């Protein structure tokens, strides 16, 4: 009851209900004489919870009736017969009521829970939003503060800049002032210096009246050109100088002329090349120009400018060689326009990636010095075609190989079948062998013969193998000896470096008396660029593994030999088996074509030598 109370209290609807309920309860309590009840209860030996005793049945019934009426139920009858049923009915009704109330209570409790959690959630979110808001507010404040500070800073820096500028100006003026001051002082000092020098001059002149005193010479020399000296001669040197100047200018002008003409010719060449690249002919003047002009008018309106020049540029593709020898200021505009136009065309062509016209391809053979875009494209195309061809060839080869294998399989099968047939035949006709006896004997004989031959060959091969291994060992020994020799030579050279050696050979015959000391410079060649010179890395690599490489080479050669040997093995072996094959050129090809056979040969080789060192497979 108490728990229910709590629930009812918390739920809003239940609250009112509860109030009503409590008031009625109090009224009831007032009506009831609880004290008497309690006393009676004590007397009857019952506890408080006992509501009804046999003495108070009527009272209780009336009380219950009252209660039941207030709850809208039928009152209990005092009749003893129907009392029981009536009581049970009421009890049932009350139970129902109680159940209903319990359900609603549960429902309400659930609702309450939900409400509570929702409420909590809302409170939480409110709190969160509040903190967020606060944070944002703070941030805004911070940013505002920052901007304010920056503004202040900006202002101060502006002021500073201004002051610095002024300072700089001031300093510059100071520097200028000081500069002028220094200059002035310097001049003063220099003047003083000059005065002193003057004085010294005078003193010197006074002291040495005879100027020849200074020169003490055994005898006078002849002039270097053999002529007599022309000291203080009357010849006009200035005229000479101007003559000299004039020749200098003339030379310079000539140089400039040469350069100019070279520039003009190169311009002409460029023009011609561009024209060729564009597919314009000097000979097809009228036609091409017409086509061009029509194209221009079609292509875009911005070329109206060029069209306005058409009276001049009408001959643009037909320019005589002399045109480039005209004074440049006259032809400059035309030339510039022309080149602009051509460049535009070239760009357009490049953009569109149009194949150059056939006539241009014909007229302009690919120039290695001037790789034009169309040439490049052509080249690329050719490359593409070549690649395709290669691919098709490869495919064909692949196909043929496959066919070959198929054929071989067929042959193998046929052979097997024949063998089987023979076997079957033999087993079948074991009874009547006498007819085929001679045949069989013959066959057996031939087989034996073959076996003998094969054994012989096998022995030969082992012999050869042995020889070969011996040779390899010998080679290895020789190599080692060579290495040793090399090291001794190097050692010798190192000792020869020592400068105190008896002279062996003169580098130049003239240096007879000079004692020369040879040196050991360490040279570092420039990397790349020079085709002949390898980079140090390469050199070091070369140096570092020279012996290894030699070893490798040696191994390779031995491998080659072995493969050759093996090749012969193969061919012979195959011939023995009467198998049709193309002569195998190399081990790899054998492997690629007939894996089974190759494996057999390998197996043979292994078994023959017992060493599989040089089986690089």
């Amino acid at each position: 009851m108490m728990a229910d109370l709590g629930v009812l209290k918390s739920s809003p609807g239940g609250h009112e209900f509860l109030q009503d309920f409590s008031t009625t309860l109090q009224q009831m309590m007032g009506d009831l004489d609880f004290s008497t009840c309690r006393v009676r209860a004590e007397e009857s030996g019952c506890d408080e919870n006992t509501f009804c005793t046999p003495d108070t049945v009527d009272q209780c019934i009336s009380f219950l009736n009252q209660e039941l009426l207030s709850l809208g139920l039928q009152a209990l009858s005092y009749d003893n017969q129907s009392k029981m049923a009536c009581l049970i009915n009421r009890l049932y009704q009350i139970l129902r009521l109680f159940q209903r109330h319990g359900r609603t209570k549960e429902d309400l409790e659930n609702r309450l829970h939900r409400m509570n959690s929702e409420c909590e959630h809302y409170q939480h979110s409110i709190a969160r939003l509040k903190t967020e808001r606060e944070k944002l507010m703070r941030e805004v404040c911070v940013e505002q503060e920052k901007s304010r500070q920056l503004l202040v800073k900006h202002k101060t820096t502006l002021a500073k800049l201004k002051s610095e500028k002024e300072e700089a100006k001031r300093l510059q003026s100071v520097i200028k002032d000081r500069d002028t001051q220094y200059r002035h002082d310097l001049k003063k000092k220099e003047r003083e210096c000059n005065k002193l020098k003057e004085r010294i001059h005078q003193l010197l002149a006074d002291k040495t009246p005879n100027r020849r005193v200074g020169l003490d010479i055994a005898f006078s020399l002849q002039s270097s050109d053999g002529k007599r000296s022309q000291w203080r001669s009357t010849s006009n040197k200035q005229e000479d100088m101007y003559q000299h100047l004039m020749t200098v200018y003339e030379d310079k002008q000539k140089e400039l002329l040469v350069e100019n003409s070279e520039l003009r010719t190169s311009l002409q060449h460029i023009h011609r090349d561009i024209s060729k690249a564009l597919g314009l002919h000097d000979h097809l003047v009228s036609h091409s120009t017409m086509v061009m002009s029509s194209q221009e008018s079609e292509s875009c309106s911005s070329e109206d400018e060029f069209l306005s020049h058409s009276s001049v540029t009408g001959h643009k593709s037909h320019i005589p060689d002399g045109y480039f020898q005209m004074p440049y200021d006259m032809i400059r505009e035309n030339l510039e326009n022309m080149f602009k136009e051509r460049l535009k065309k070239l760009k357009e062509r490049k953009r569109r990636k149009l194949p150059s016209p056939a006539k241009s391809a014909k007229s302009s053979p690919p120039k290695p010095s001037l790789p034009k875009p169309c040439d490049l494209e052509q080249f690329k195309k050719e490359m593409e075609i070549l690649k395709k061809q290669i691919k098709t060839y490869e495919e064909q080869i692949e196909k043929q190989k496959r066919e070959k294998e198929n054929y071989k399989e067929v042959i193998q099968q046929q052979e097997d079948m024949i063998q089987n047939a023979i076997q079957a035949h033999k087993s079948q006709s074991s009874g009547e062998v006498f007819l085929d006896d001679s045949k069989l004997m013959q066959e057996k004989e031939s087989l034996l013969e073959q076996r003998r031959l094969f054994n012989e060959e096998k022995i030969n091969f082992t012999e050869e193998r042995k020889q070969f291994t011996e040779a390899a060992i010998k080679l290895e020994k020789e190599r080692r000896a060579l290495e040793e020799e090399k090291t001794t030579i190097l050692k010798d050279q190192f000792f020869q470096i020592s400068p105190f050696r008896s002279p062996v050979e003169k580098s130049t015959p003239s240096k007879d008396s000079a004692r020369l000391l040879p040196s050991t410079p360490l040279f570092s060649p420039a990397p790349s660029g020079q085709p002949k010179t390898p980079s140090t890395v390469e050199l070091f690599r070369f140096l570092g593994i020279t012996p290894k490489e030699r070893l490798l080479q040696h191994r390779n050669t031995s491998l080659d030999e072995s493969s050759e040997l093996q090749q012969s093995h193969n061919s012979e072996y195959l011939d023995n088996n009467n198998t049709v094959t193309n002569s195998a050129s190399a081990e790899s090809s054998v492997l690629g074509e007939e894996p089974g056979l190759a494996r057999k040969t390998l197996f043979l080789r292994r078994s023959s030598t017992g060493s599989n060192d040089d089986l690089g497979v």
Partner: protein
Amino acid sequence: MNCICCCVFEHTIDNIAFCFLEFDMNFSELFRQSNQICKFSPDGKFLASVVEFRLVIRDVDTLQIQNLYTCLDTIQHIEWSADSQFILCGLFKRGIVQVWSIEQPEWTCKIDEGSAGLCATRWSPDGRHILTTADFYLRITVWSLVTKSVSYIRYPKRCQKSLDYSNGGKYMALAERRECKDFISIFACDSWELVKHFETETDDLAGIEWSPDGRVLAVWESPIKYKILLYTLDGRCVSKFSAYDNALGIKSLAWSPTSQFLALGSYDEKLRVLNHITWNAVATHSHPPTVKEEDVVVYKEIETRAPLPPGNDIDAPTAALFTPQSKYEVDQPPIDIPVVKPDTNRANPKLGVGMLAFSCDCKYIYTRNDNMPSTLWIWDVQKLRLCAVLTQGAAIKCVEWDPLQPRLALCTGTNKLYMWSPTGSLAVEVPVEGVFNVHSLKWHPDGNTILLLGKDQMCVCYLSDPGAEKS
């Protein structure tokens, strides 16, 4: 003596020919010299060297002493006359010049500047006159050895290069300073007559140099200002060039042998190449601290650590085994280049392009940026790009192109000689007894001999082509 092939790889790779660096290198023994005053004669026959008071003339091929002249005091300067007949010795402390004849050893000549003092001396192009500069650049005196006449040129300017002869020796340009203004005087060298005198548009002229064809005279301003002016013989200003203002300017300058290019190295660590028609820059090459270009060949000197010698009393050839060996390794860009931070508070900071020269065939320029002292940059003139970079273990002391081939030799003050050519580089230790660090080097005019100068010793390196010998 026996020759050792230069290319160590030749033992293993037979079919590779190194076109320019395939030669034997043989070194002479050491000779004494003082103050690194040694010069090949212009005709290439003789080698003059100084040992304090004495002037030693040796035959270049045999290195035998041909003549020995004794001067009055320590020799501070020598110069061969253009015809290789005479050699002058400047004894600046005494204020005298002594001249010696190769063909007539008994002939003597002494020039005394007297109380005016002496600070420089040089031959005229004809080899019959001697120009002496008095102390404080008071005057230049022209002494004729033919007529014994003496004449003075006053107001010469004290600067980097105040005097230059045009090619062929026809004219002499002299920078002068009068009344705080720069002038240039052009003299005809055969009569010493003044043919032109003109003022230049400079505040403080630093130097003058004729183009090799003698058509133009380059005049450059002191480093305070970036300015170069080009004058013709008659004083017309052909062109001016200035790359920037308000910073230290030109540090070094070189004409190409063909006169088509003028290379300018400046304090902004850049190399600018001007053309001879418009005098505009055709290329501006900077020297970045990281080389990123993929197609640049970077040679890095690698010093191998040598084992410690077993004892002190070992003979020279054995000792040579225990000195560190050097070799070049080819590095792949990007490469960081060691940079020395210059002290800009002091005058003449070690910054900017201080050394540059064109190769004889005008295909390459080398430069050294002074704040990257151990790196040599080689530029391709035709392709206008960096071609090779050599990073040395020590600061580069001296670089010189072969006068006949596109290859160069350099030294770094160590006991090694380095060479570069388009096909590769080499490092070689000078195989001599004792300590010999190469501080300077000079090519013989024939290009097959290099003179190596140490502190007080010298050594001659002969490069001989084994192929030529065989034939």
